[in-house]
């Protein structure tokens, strides 16, 4: 599948022209605001996208990510702020004239048209002759691996196939920007994984600047050049996936991306924090109060089997190469610790263990009252 995709994608640049309009489009979202009644869907969102970059907008539902995408597409208008494509303000350009390819969450193929006609639709709207648009459309279907299904109607295709046709249809118009609105969330896990790879490979080969909206952090982290984490209409942090994971700017990002433990601690003078009996330097934002939670990922905590340790093993979840161990600490604090599965055999529920903090500086957040 992957090799096939890569081969197809390699041919893609010949099909729709790598140096075409999709090649080098920069997109700038400037201070966008949008309110629906009293809810502020967007509250001053600014993002700068480099040509050919794939930016994922990640956030819980209602954080404004879809609104942002729809404003770029031209389906919504911002109350204030503007969208610049290659430096030009497109705010007043109607959706039909924006040259943006869009793939929707729900299946959006036209039921009355075959896969081929669906892909050719955008070309037809651009007054391209029947012969050449059919040629281009079948090349694109070939690119997404659906050449044999060209004559089939949407209802004859599986969900994954439909989304691939939708992707081909969006790419057929050589969009300046590709907009993906949770295109994978209606699909089952296996298909989702394959399509994820396929989209990313194609996008990289074609160099199409892409804005991708998702609530699935794994999707965002695995596909995007940069991930923007959104919350209540604002961007909390935008960074490369590894940076987002290892160096989250805020407690919200830290907890939204990946699994995060909260361990109660006390701030000390000189940017130090004490927790679980050790004192560590603090990095990043320092809350006002001295009662804080130390944020550590499951792989960052140390775990040893000892007599009369500070915790008791409660659960053990096998995840493949690692096993996630649930530990109950004193004071009703539960943490999760990842250990290599080969070592986890000794960590049966009920075992007494000592959980320790890492040696490097840690992130802290105001203590959550629960």
């Amino acid at each position, binding site marked *: 599948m992957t090799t096939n995709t890569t081969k197809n994608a390699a041919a893609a640049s010949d099909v729709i022209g790598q140096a075409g309009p999709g090649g080098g489009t920069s997109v700038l979202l400037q201070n966008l605001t949008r309110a629906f009644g009293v809810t502020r869907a967007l509250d001053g969102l600014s993002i700068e996208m480099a040509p050919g970059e794939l930016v994922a907008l990640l956030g819980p539902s209602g954080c404004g990510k879809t609104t942002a995408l729809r404003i770029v597409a031209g389906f919504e208008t911002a109350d204030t702020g503007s969208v610049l494509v290659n430096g030009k303000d497109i705010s007043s350009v109607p959706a039909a004239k924006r040259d943006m390819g869009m793939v929707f969450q729900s299946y*959006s193929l036209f039921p009355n048209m075959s896969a081929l006609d669906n892909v050719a*639709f955008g070309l037809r709207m651009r007054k391209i002759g029947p012969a050449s648009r059919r040629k281009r459309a079948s090349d694109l279907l070939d690119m997404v691996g659906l050449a044999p299904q060209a004559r089939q109607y949407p209802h004859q295709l599986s969900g994954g196939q439909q989304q691939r046709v939708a992707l081909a249809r969006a790419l057929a118009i050589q969009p300046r920007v590709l907009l993906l609105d949770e295109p994978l969330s209606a699909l*089952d896990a296996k298909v989702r994984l394959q399509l994820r790879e396929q989209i990313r490979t194609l996008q990289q080969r074609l160099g199409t600047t892409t804005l991708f909206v998702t609530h699935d952090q794994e999707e965002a982290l695995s596909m995007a050049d940069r991930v923007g984490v959104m919350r209540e209409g604002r961007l909390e942090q935008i960074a490369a996936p590894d940076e987002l994971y290892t160096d989250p700017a805020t407690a919200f990002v830290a907890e939204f991306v990946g699994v995060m433990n909260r361990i109660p601690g006390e701030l000390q003078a000189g940017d130090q924090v004490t927790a679980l009996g050790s004192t560590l330097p603090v990095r990043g934002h320092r809350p006002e109060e001295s009662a804080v939670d130390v944020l550590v990922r499951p792989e960052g905590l140390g775990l040893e089997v000892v007599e009369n340790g500070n915790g008791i093993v409660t659960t053990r979840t096998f995840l493949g190469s690692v096993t996630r161990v649930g530990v109950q600490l004193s004071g009703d604090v539960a943490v999760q610790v990842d250990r290599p599965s080969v070592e986890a055999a000794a960590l049966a529920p009920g075992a007494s263990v000592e959980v320790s903090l890492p040696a490097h500086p840690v992130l802290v957040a105001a203590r959550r009252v629960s």
Partner: protein
Amino acid sequence: MAAIAQEAPEGIAPPRRQGIVFRGSTVWRWVVLLVATVYFLLPLWAALRFAGIGAFGSVVSESGFTSSLALSVRLAVITTLITIVLMLPTTVYVHLRLPKLRRLLEGITILPVVIPPVVLIVGVLAIAPGFIKATSLLLALEYVILAMPFAYRAIDAGLRALDLKTIVEASSSLGAGWVSTLWRVVLPNLRTALLSAVVLTVALVLGEFTMASLALFETFPVWIYVNSQTSGQVSVAASLLALFVTWLFLLAITMVGTRQSRKTGGREVTLFTVARQETRGD
């Protein structure tokens, strides 16, 4: 393609519940069918016996037959045209832009079913200006009101099955203007719904008696009634003929509609179940 082969098979039918069905139910099924058949076919057979085969020949030459049938057909065509031209854009617009109004519209469109035709026509006859009263346009306009509940529901169901908002947005993101979107994307996908609306409207117009009779127009049903006063046999033969012709007409429409809808994954078009297009995966 590995991708295709690996996708989970969809829609595995649950095992049929067998064995629970006891033998008696098969017998009952046949009894019900038989009773229904007798109930529906006996009057037709009796009518046929009463009229005699010969009466069918004289129906066509009877005075008023051609003109009344022509009037009914003309009314059916005009009514259908006005209904579609009015209801289609309205319903599409409400679905796209004013979804909150759908409930209200549903309420309004049900009114003609609740209000008896007699009330509708008497009121209109009392206030309608003379130049309208003199033409069959009056009846056509009345029939548009009568057909509204059926036409609206047919189109509404078609639109609901469509995910209109998404395909309209997809269409415009691909560069289609409003006219192209409506003509190439929305209309073709409403074909079955529109056909249902047409079928229901035509059936309604061809069979309507009260309004036509009170407004003093000799439509086909009125002609049959008037004729029954003078020649019972011919009038019954005409009724049977009308039934048969209407039935053939509706059958033709539904067959064409079903073929169209099958192609795009829809179901059979019938008079009472408005075809809903199945969208996979939801």
